[in-house]
Structures are given as structure tokens and as C-alpha cells.
């Protein structure tokens, strides 16, 4: 078999080699195709949504393109209901952060002071709000407070959102606490510091990066929450509810203008954080 005459073997060799190269390159090509499709899938909808802002069409779309306009920003700017919803969402977000940050931190500290068995039980209870559908949290909160005569509204929105957002804060603080050397607390105590001073000067500064990140996440979670909010909102309308209502009752590209602004803000935030990270990393390398 190996003794094939070179004369016949040579012409056959070329296509085989090309095929071989193709089959070796194929996985790579397939992967590039997959990656392209994935990114298109992820970003095209956002791009189309944003682009529709500039179309004069009354219904937001890019097909057909009826003409370019900046008018929808103007309409958004003049929409009083939008402003009201935005301020409400910002206020709710801040209130949720103000609640979830101390409670989540307390919960994390509480967990680390338990023995392994009790910790397992409390941990399960504390993370359970993350594994429960948002609608169930909203409904349970609504039912409980109705017994006390308090109906849906901003107060219940904050409470219901904080129920699960606190769990996020708790997890982030626990992660940071795992790297804390408890001997630092004893050292401070041995130097005569009060419990309060130890907390303020030693533990809190250590937790600070985690708390900043947690505040950011908590705010974001609150700001974009819809499912839980829907059930406890009463007649109050935060931004997400406002958008969803618009979709059903009279969507115009003004909503797209809002989406575009939020997307732009997100991009800027992400880039600022990344630059910040790079700067810090660069600084560390030099130091």
C-alpha cells in the first residue's frame, strides 16, 4: 500500500492536503461564525432600538425609515409623567441602598459569628430571596402589609425590593470578610480601642470597596426591577413600570430616546469603571 507509484500519488495529494487544511481550520471558522452571531444577537436589538429614536415614524421601528429627526428627545423632555417616574425610581433606589447596605453588612457579620451548623441554616434562609421569583416576593410583601392596613405604594416597593437586594449585599460583604484577619480586631482591642472605634477604623475601611460595589449593584437592581415592583406599586409608577405601560398604551420613539440615554449612561459607566481598574492596576505595578 505504501508502495504507490509517486507518479499517481502526487496529483491526488494536493486536494487531500487542501481538505485537510480546511478540516483543521473548520472549528476555528465555525467558532468565529458563532462569536459573530452571538455578538450580533446581543447588540443588534439594542442598536435597532436606539436607532429607532431618530426615525420620524410614530411607531418605533427602523423599517421603513420615514425620515431622520431629533424630535423624540424633545417629546421625552416634555413628558411630565416620565420625569415623575424617573425621580421616583431614583428615590426608591437610594432608599433601598440606604436600607440594604447596613442590613446586608450586619447579616454578613452575623453569619461569620455563627458555628458551621447554624451558619448553614441562616445562610439558606438569607439567600432564599435570591432564588425566589420576584413576583412571589412582591405578593408576599403585599399580603403581609395589607393585614396592617398598608397598601401598595412607594413604601412597599422599597421594602419588597430590599428583601432580596439585601441578600446581594450580604453575599458581597461575606466574600470580602473571608479575607479579613480577625487578629486585627484583637490587636486594636489590646491597644485600648473601643468596640465602636474598632468597627469604624479597622473593619469598615476594610469593607469599603465591597460596600461601594454593593451600593452600586443594589441601586442598579432596584432601578431596573419590574417583577417585584409590579405587585406592590399600588398606583405609584416607577420608571420600569412607566416604560412597560407605555408599550401597551401608546408606544412612541420617545421611549426609545429614553432607552438610548440609559444605554449611553451604562456604556459610560462601564468604561469609566474599566479605566479606573486599569489605572489602579497600572499604579500597583509601578509601586
Amino acid at each position, binding site marked *: 500500500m505504501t508502495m504507490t507509484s509517486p507518479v499517481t500519488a502526487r496529483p491526488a495529494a494536493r486536494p487531500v492536503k487542501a481538505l485537510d487544511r480546511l478540516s483543521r481550520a473548520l472549528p476555528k471558522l465555525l467558532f468565529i461564525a458563532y462569536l459573530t452571531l452571538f455578538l450580533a444577537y446581543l447588540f443588534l436589538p439594542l442598536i435597532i*432600538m436606539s436607532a429607532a429614536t431618530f426615525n420620524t415614524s410614530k411607531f418605533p421601528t427602523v423599517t421603513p425609515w420615514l425620515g431622520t429627526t431629533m424630535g423624540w428627545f424633545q417629546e421625552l423632555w416634555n413628558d411630565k409623567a416620565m420625569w415623575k417616574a424617573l425621580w421616583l425610581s431614583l428615590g426608591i433606589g437610594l432608599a433601598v441602598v440606604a436600607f440594604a447596605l447596613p442590613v446586608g453588612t450586619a447579616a454578613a457579620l452575623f453569619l461569620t459569628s455563627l458555628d458551621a451548623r447554624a451558619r448553614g441554616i441562616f445562610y439558606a434562609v438569607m439567600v432564599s430571596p435570591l432564588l425566589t421569583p420576584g413576583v412571589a416576593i412582591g405578593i408576599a410583601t403585599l399580603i403581609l402589609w395589607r393585614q396592617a392596613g398598608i397598601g401598595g405604594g412607594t413604601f412597599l416597593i422599597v421594602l419588597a425590593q430590599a428583601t432580596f437586594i439585601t441578600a446581594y449585599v450580604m453575599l458581597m460583604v461575606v466574600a470580602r470578610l473571608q479575607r479579613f484577619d480577625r487578629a486585627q480586631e484583637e490587636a486594636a482591642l489590646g491597644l485600648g480601642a473601643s468596640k465602636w472605634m474598632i468597627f469604624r477604623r479597622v473593619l469598615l475601611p476594610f469593607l469599603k470597596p465591597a460596600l461601594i460595589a454593593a451600593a452600586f449593584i443594589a441601586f442598579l437592581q432596584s432601578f431596573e426591577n419590574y417583577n417585584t415592583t409590579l405587585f406592590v406599586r399600588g398606583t405609584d409608577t416607577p420608571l420600569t413600570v412607566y416604560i412597560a405601560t407605555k408599550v401597551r398604551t401608546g408606544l412612541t420613539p420617545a421611549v426609545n430616546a429614553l432607552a438610548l440615554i440609559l444605554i449611553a449612561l451604562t456604556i459610560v459607566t462601564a468604561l469609566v469603571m474599566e479605566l479606573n481598574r486599569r489605572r489602579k492596576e497600572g499604579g500597583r505595578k509601578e509601586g
Partner: protein
Amino acid sequence: MTEMIKRFGPGLGGFFIALVALWIIGMVLAPNLMMLNFSLKPMLFPNDIGGPKDVYTVENYTALFGDRVHRAIFLKTVWGSGLVMLATLAITYPLAFWMAKVATIRGARAMLIALIIPFWINEVLRTLAWFIILSFNGPLNAFLLSIGLIDAPVRWQGDFGVLAGMVYAYILFMLFPIYNSISTLETAQLEAAKNLGASTWRIHRRIVIPHAKAGIATGCVFTFMLAAGSYVAPALLGSPGSRWFTEIIYNWFFEGGNWNRGAAYALVLLVLCMAVVMVTLKIFRVNLADVAK
């Protein structure tokens, strides 16, 4: 408890314990117990409360499984959510692996930032984007018509729209946990396996997937829970014939006016999600602490 007081003193320690109690008892346990209690009572007029009609009953639960339409919608929600979970898993696994082990650090970093942007954007807006794309005179139909794949516009809204929107909305909840867990795998292990002549398929089946199981479990639990509990996608992308379980719950509260039945339905949804969590943890042999990260 005493440890908290000892560590932070009676003032600060007591304050912390009070905060934790407020959260766990007042916001996690009490509402759920009240919901359970509520779901076991018939709907009553205020003057019947405490009267002879105020008795415990499982009627609200039997009603769900007795009603053919509701039962069908519930089952559809279960398998639809399962489908979303599997679709996101299949779509994201290769990318997660590539980002964690194949791409350069810069490449992976850039990809991560690119992905974080849609992740941070509101679920409602993400669904709105699909609402626009899938609309009858929207870009998707226009595109398909122009390349001649269809002759007349297709009505995408309905079950297809709902599932497509959910996959889009929750895909990153699958990608990030898997990416995180694969990143902790030593590259040397992969090289060793390759060196020993293992095929790509075998390397994934025997090394990468077992290592990433906590991440996969996390992704599965979250995407399932989010899909089953989703309200935006079905409300915006569905059609009258494609109702989701959360929409029925919503109707009991704000249109049907039977909160007790709504509470029972919500509890069924909650139990379903808890069951999925348990089963997933069992299948992947991981514990809760690995999942909640």
C-alpha cells in the same frame, strides 16, 4: 448571638442583631408564612373574617389543577422555562470556555465589558428591543421579506416571541457563572489531558464540565427561576393565546380580585422554583454556598 455582642459590644452588636432580625423575620419569613396562611383560606368579605366561613381549605390549590386551562399554562411555563434554561446553556457554554481559557487576557477583558453593558440594561428595555424587532411591520419581517425567505409578514408574537425574548433577557445569567467557574480551572490540566491524547469532547466531558459544575448549576437555577417568574416578556411579546403562569397570578390579584387564589398560585410557583433548586443541587452534587456567589 453572644459572639456578636462580644465582638461589637452591646450597642453596636445589638443593633446589628436587630437589623438581621428585622430582615429575616419581618421581610423573609413573615411575608411568606402570611402568604401560605392566606392561600389556605377561601376568599371572604371583610365581615366574614373570623366567622364560620373562615376555615382552612386546600380549595385554592385544587382549583389550579382542576382548571384545564390553568393547568396547561402551568405546565407550559415549566417546560418553557426548562427550554430557556437549556437554550441559554447551549448558546453560552462555548463562549464561556473561550473567554476563560482560549482568549488572550485583553480579549477576554474586552468581551467582558461588552457583555456587561446589555447585562446592566433593564430587563424591560431588553424586552422592548425584541418587541420592536418582532413587531408585524418590524425589521425582522422586513429583512426576511427582502431576502425572499418569506412571502408575507409573520406574526412572531406568541410563544415564540416569549421564549426568544426570555433567552435574550436571561442569557448573561448563564454566561457569567459558567465563565467564572471555568476561569478557576488550571490551564495546565487541559494541556495535560491533551498531552495524554484526550479528544476535545473528552476533555470537556471529563475535565471542564465537572470543574464548572457549580457555575453551570448556578446558571441553570437562575435562568429557570427568572424565566418561570418573568412577567415582562410574556406581557410584551406574548399573544392572547400564549399566556404565562405569572400573568394568571397577576390577574387574580388585579383583575379577578381573588387574592387568596393568587397567593396559592404564587406559592405553587415558589415551590416549583425551590424544587428546581434542590434537584439541580442534587444532580450537580453542589451545595447552596457554591451556587449563591
